[in-house]
């Protein structure tokens, strides 16, 4: 397994400070802020060049779900906004130096690709499996940049951000 990802921090108490992060902050300056006027939360950290980031959410610190986000560090702060209807929620950050070449489960699918399509990178995915049952294997879907989650969908392309192009 060539993965070098690192779980950074299970979030966290709220920190009221709105001061932006910088490169010398420990734990990448990871923090959560609350906007009292909207009730929204900001989850931010310092994105270091050469690192990519995955976000995970939990309500109980037991069940963690990857959000389909792969962020890239360019020596700037990165921030995502959140609202939740639950009474509590937790976020944590995972670091991967090369998300589209590492495969945490050793199944040949990259961590980044699996996260963007809603798979867990740590769970082995059968390369000859067909998650959407459209006749094309998941590895075939990856190689042809098609959606492994959508049956009989017209051919779509995966952009660098993982969004579906019409």
């Amino acid at each position, binding site marked *: 397994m060539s993965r070098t990802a690192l779980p950074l921090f299970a979030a966290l108490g709220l920190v009221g400070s709105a001061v932006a992060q910088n490169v010398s902050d420990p734990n990448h300056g990871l923090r959560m802020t609350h906007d009292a006027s909207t009730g929204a939360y900001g989850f931010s950290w310092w994105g270091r060049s050469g690192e990519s980031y995955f976000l995970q959410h939990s309500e109980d610190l037991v069940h963690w779900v990857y959000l389909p986000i792969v962020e890239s560090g360019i020596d700037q702060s*990165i921030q995502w*906004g959140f609202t939740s209807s639950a009474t509590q929620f937790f976020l944590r950050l995972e670091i991967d130096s090369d998300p589209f070449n590492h495969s945490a489960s050793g199944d040949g699918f990259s961590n980044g690709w699996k996260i963007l399509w*809603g798979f867990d990178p740590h769970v082995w995915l059968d390369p000859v499996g067909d998650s959407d049952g459209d006749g094309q294997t998941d590895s075939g879907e990856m190689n042809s940049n098609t959606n492994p989650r959508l049956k009989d969908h017209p051919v779509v392309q995966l952009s660098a*951000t993982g969004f579906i192009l019409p």
Partner: protein
Amino acid sequence: MNPCKPSPHLQKTGYTTALLLVWLAVAFPCMAAAASDGDVPETNDDRAGLNFQVIERWEADVGDHLIFYNRVAPPAVPAVTLSTAEPLATNDAVATDLREQKKVDVLMLFATVVDHRITEVRWFSGSQQYRAFSTIDFNQLCGLGEIETADTVYSLIPGVSNESSEASGGLDRYATEQEWPTEAIQMAAANQTHSQYFVVPSDAPPPANILTALDALHVYYDGHRQELAEACAQREAQRLEKERWLKEHPPAPKDTVINFWPQKSSVYFDANQQEGQQ
């Protein structure tokens, strides 16, 4: 298209893997197709007063309820209504007040309490981590919101965990296993009438203001030991009572809606850009 309803084969069950427990998301996010056909749903968050345009939606089954995840376009912030009321104080008065006020800071301490007898305390200053040992049971400080020094009011944020030395065969052995410094072991063994702490030497001297805050914390503890202990016992009793009540009256699980959007991103788009136009 209804993006809330992924096809049945996407309704994946949970899984666990002990070795990778730290890493794993045990609930599998069931990706729904992205709303690429123009059928873009909207969702409101009543608590936030925000309207969201959903770009992508999927759900995760976490056992007793579902979590709906909405990746949304950055919401417009509601317009602020300016008050026309007369100002309560003049600028000079505010400036005077500010001069008279103490500085406000946050004291974030990570505490590991062992056997309710001694606490290992860690904190950061810049990238430097510091470590100290205190005879205070930091569980008793959880109700303490702030601590004040001569010039600063610190909001106290103690992250407290508890350890037992039982498995090690006693505190002495535990301390040896954990490679505690001798001073900490002696401090834990001694019967103290006053609280004490010991800062473990590090590469850089700890900031003086933190030591002043720790001094103030220990002085406060010694002066309020009884009431802190009583408050702690009361909190614990309330917690147990709540736990018992919840066991007898378990709340019906509610589904959750999470909305999330990029605010500062190197990859994703801001509110005025469209998907795929990077």
